[in-house]
């Protein structure tokens, strides 16, 4: 009795340690994100020739025009509303006319495409002329975004320490998984070792080989990915390994994407190819797709099943975002709308309404960020309500889910079987959970993917599951805050929308399983089991990473040294 009681107390102590620990890790990740930032200073200044007024140039891409919303607003009737764009690339500062009436001139020569501007060069728009000056000459202080209000160059925690914290968290989880009520063995340890080998290799590649200065974003994603993998250990060992392999592929994709989008102009030239590729992928899916859980969104290639729609998400963000001077063209926007319609239509055809909904919501985000037009957004919203009514009419299983919504306890044995169990087991877990592998929700179908929030709550407790939900909220705040310094509107739009997409997906997952919304059957980013899903999450994370100007900073530093 004495020893048993001691053991039990140890188990309980561990269970209460884990939630506190999880909160600390998530806090540390975001604390680090809020630092490491250079002070807010203008990049260059524009001096108006006639008045001598200094205008700070804050962004890498700046619109110049008469309209109030322009980054550099010129109060001159001969200037067009959206006149030209002043942007910074590796080769220096460029100016690009975006269809103004009077034209843009650099040193009195008419600028047609992007034209280089050097320090002390003159840019003329309408009857106003600016001289490009260095940024140091501007003295006034600029207030930084609240997210970075504590900005300093010192990270709150060294990246390797953060990784150690995460490793120990995963270790504790593994220990819990080793000693469940039903089985006691050390099989989970093998998974743990593979997981940590993967995470630390990724850390090594990132910091030593690729020389990235910060690692918080990756650390957070690694933390969540690891939790998802270890949750699978006592469910199905095989899927835990699949999840690990997929996470590895996802990390490779992450690094490649960050590299690929280093130059936003290169991305633009690939845009059409990406669009065609994505549509081809969806077409293959429609033709060869196999039905699983009521939606034909899977392709079987030998032993591997993939969900192409997950990869199309990444392509979708690519096509939606663009650099500021490209953004203004009608053709670019039209292509995006057509592409959206094809994607949503294809998904609806497959019967994957959950993903179709995610695409549509992301479409609204992107469309609004690009056009700023509430009317367009409203119109799109109304049209989707109509489409939704038709779906409800012709797809009885979708209608069933709507009927069960809000009436879980009446339908606990039929249409709301899954939601009822999620609620019951979420409450059964208490604050600290019943321990990894001790849950009962794992016996319910799709508990590791669509219902993973319930599984997480039951086995790890509601503190952990809510902390993870809040970390996704914080991720979206972070994505929005870094865009003030991102090097192109391509990054601002893609980062915000990638974060928005993840939030929408999380909302559908968590609220669907807990009867706040009808059940749609989508995955929870990074946590849910599903190879395609985890790969696509890491892919989406690349957009947020790229939006941070520090991501590419180390390279520039190196190049400067070479030049010396």
């Amino acid at each position: 009795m004495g020893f048993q009681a001691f053991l039990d107390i140890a188990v309980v102590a561990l269970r209460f340690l884990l939630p506190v620990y999880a909160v600390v890790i998530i806090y540390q990740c975001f604390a680090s994100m809020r630092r490491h930032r250079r002070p807010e200073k203008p990049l260059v200044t524009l001096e108006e020739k006639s008045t001598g007024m200094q205008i700070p140039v804050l962004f890498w891409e700046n619109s110049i025009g008469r309209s109030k919303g322009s980054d550099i607003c010129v109060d001159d009737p001969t200037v067009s509303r959206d006149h030209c764009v002043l942007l910074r690339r590796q080769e220096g500062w460029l100016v690009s006319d975006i269809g103004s009436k009077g034209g843009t001139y650099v040193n009195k020569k008419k600028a047609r495409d992007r034209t280089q501007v050097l320090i002390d060069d003159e840019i003329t728009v309408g009857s106003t002329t600016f001289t490009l000056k260095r940024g140091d000459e501007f003295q006034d202080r600029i207030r930084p975004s609240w997210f970075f209000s504590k900005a300093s160059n010192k990270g709150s925690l060294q990246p390797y320490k953060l990784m150690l914290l995460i490793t120990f968290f995963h270790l504790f989880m593994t220990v819990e998984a080793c000693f469940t009520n039903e089985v006691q063995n050390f099989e989970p340890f093998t998974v743990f070792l593979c997981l940590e080998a993967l995470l630390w290799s990724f850390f090594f590649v990132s910091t030593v080989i690729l020389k990235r200065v910060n690692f918080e974003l990756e650390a957070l994603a690694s933390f969540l990915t690891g939790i998802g993998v270890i949750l699978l250990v006592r469910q199905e060992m095989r899927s835990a390994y699949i999840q690990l392999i997929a996470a590895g592929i996802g990390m490779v994709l992450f690094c490649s994407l960050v590299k690929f989008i280093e130059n936003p102009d290169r991305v633009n030239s690939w845009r059409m190819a990406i669009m065609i590729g994505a549509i081809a992928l969806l077409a293959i899916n429609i033709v060869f797709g196999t039905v699983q859980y009521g939606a034909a969104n899977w392709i079987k290639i030998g032993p591997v099943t993939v969900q192409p729609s997950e990869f199309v998400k990444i392509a979708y963000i690519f096509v939606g975002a663009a650099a500021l001077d490209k953004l203004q063209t009608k053709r670019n926007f039209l292509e995006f709308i057509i592409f959206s319609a094809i994607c949503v239509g294809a998904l609806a055809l497959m019967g994957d309404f959950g993903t179709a909904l995610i695409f549509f919501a992301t479409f609204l985000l992107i469309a609004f960020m690009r056009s700023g037009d509430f009317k367009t957004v409203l119109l799109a919203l109304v049209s989707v309500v109509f489409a939704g009514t038709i779906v409800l009419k012709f797809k009885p299983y979708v209608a069933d889910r709507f009927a069960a919504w809000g009436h879980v306890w009446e339908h606990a044995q039929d249409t709301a079987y899954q939601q009822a169990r999620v609620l019951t087991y979420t409450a059964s877990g208490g604050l600290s959970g019943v321990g990894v592998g001790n849950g009962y929700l794992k016996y319910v179908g799709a508990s590791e993917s669509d219902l993973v929030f319930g599984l997480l709550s039951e086995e790890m407790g509601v503190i952990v599951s809510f902390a993870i939900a809040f970390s996704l909220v914080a991720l979206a705040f972070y994505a929005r805050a870094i865009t003030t310094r991102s090097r192109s509107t391509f990054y601002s739009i893609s980062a915000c929308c990638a974060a928005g997409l993840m939030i929408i997906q999380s909302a559908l997952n968590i609220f669907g399983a807990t009867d706040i919304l009808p059940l749609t059957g989508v995955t929870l980013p990074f946590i849910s089991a599903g190879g395609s899903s985890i790969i696509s999450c890491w892919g989406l994370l690349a957009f947020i990473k790229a939006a941070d100007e520090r991501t590419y900073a180390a390279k520039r530093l190196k190049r400067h040294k070479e030049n010396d």
Partner: protein
Amino acid sequence: MKRIMSRSIFVLIVTLAFFAGICLLAFRLLTQNEAWVQQPYNGHVASSNGLAQAGDITDRNGVVLAHTNEKEERVYHEDEDTRKALLHLVGDNSLNISTAVQSMYRGELTGYSFVWGLGLPKSLRTSDAVNLTINADACKAAYQAFGGKDGACVIYNYKTGEILVDVSTPTYDPQNPPEINEKNEDKYDGVYLDNVMSSSYTPGSIFKIITAAAAIENIPDIYQRSFSCTGEYDIDGQKITCENAHGTIDFTTSFAQSCNVAFAQMAVEVGEEKMEETATSMGFNKEFEVSGIKLSKSVYTLENALGDNQIGWSGIGQFEDLANPMHMAIMCGAIANDGTPVTPYFLDDSNELLKNLGITNAKESEQMLSADTAKKVQDLMRATADYYYNARGITMGNLNFCAKTGTAEVGKDKEPNAWFVGYTEDEKHPYAFAVVVEEGGYGIQAATPVAQAAISALVNSEQ
């Protein structure tokens, strides 16, 4: 750039909406967690494993009715008939009998709390023991007296409110629960219901107690009246029938001999409004609560009555009348207590469980009858027992008692339901009782043995 950034507020709105949703979920979790956990399919609580840490359940004399042994198995009383008799009060490993203590208070028995969930190792869980006011021996005696028939038997102390006997049949052995399938579902029809609390039956002649009370209050010369019974009587061109012709009888005799003809006339004379008023004041159409269990309502309404004939039938406990056994016992308790009942309970306030949940049993209850009327009804029921039941050899040992039988017609192909309700008049043994035997036949034959067996067991063990 600036414009794009300001438009990213849309992402912020979506994020805040997500945040609000999470808060809503947290709120629901905080307020409804207990209800979410107590589901029959919940693997943490619904198996024997769920009761692995549950405390003992004991009867009033400390007899252990349910207990968890060292192997973490839930074991019930060693005697099979006792187990079967107490199934609906104690419950089994499943949560199928929703009003049983092991279902209603499974969370407390297993040590559920919002903070700890159900994940606490067993050695650290604190679980409450439950002490029932029940007498297990008397319950067993009642169960055996049913002789395999379906029905309900309840006995409670009308002075203190303690429920001593609560037996519902059909039942099964909680130690070896049957697998209920298509073949045997007829045998187990309604087995998960505690008929005492959760069923209502056609009352038949026991309803004459209410009609008598209404007559005493509304017909001033009722004791001077005489009724002539030829075995049938015409109201609105349709018949009210008696078993046999009672001849010319007075009010008291008509009650003792349960004359339908006399009571149908009384009901019609008292009239729709006053009949409903008396029935409602005596607890019909009301919801009673006993130790946290809401009783199935007794029903008396003349909303659908087409004429005097149906009012007549309603006065003798047919038509649309329904009576709940527990309520019938409470009503008899009220008569015995000169009009005001003591609310019964089977979990007294000393149980830690109730203290922890902040539940107290309601001791006070509304008056059902004026003291004067109650005393007159007592006399009627006493006369019935003395002159009528005693003559047929129906006694309660040495105890004086007041009672009324009922034989309620429930359908053409079915035997009638047999009723027996009343109370003992004894300082040491003040018991109000109600027995119903489904398709038992005559109340006086089928229902009285159950009450007799239970009360004699009570008297034996409560010396």
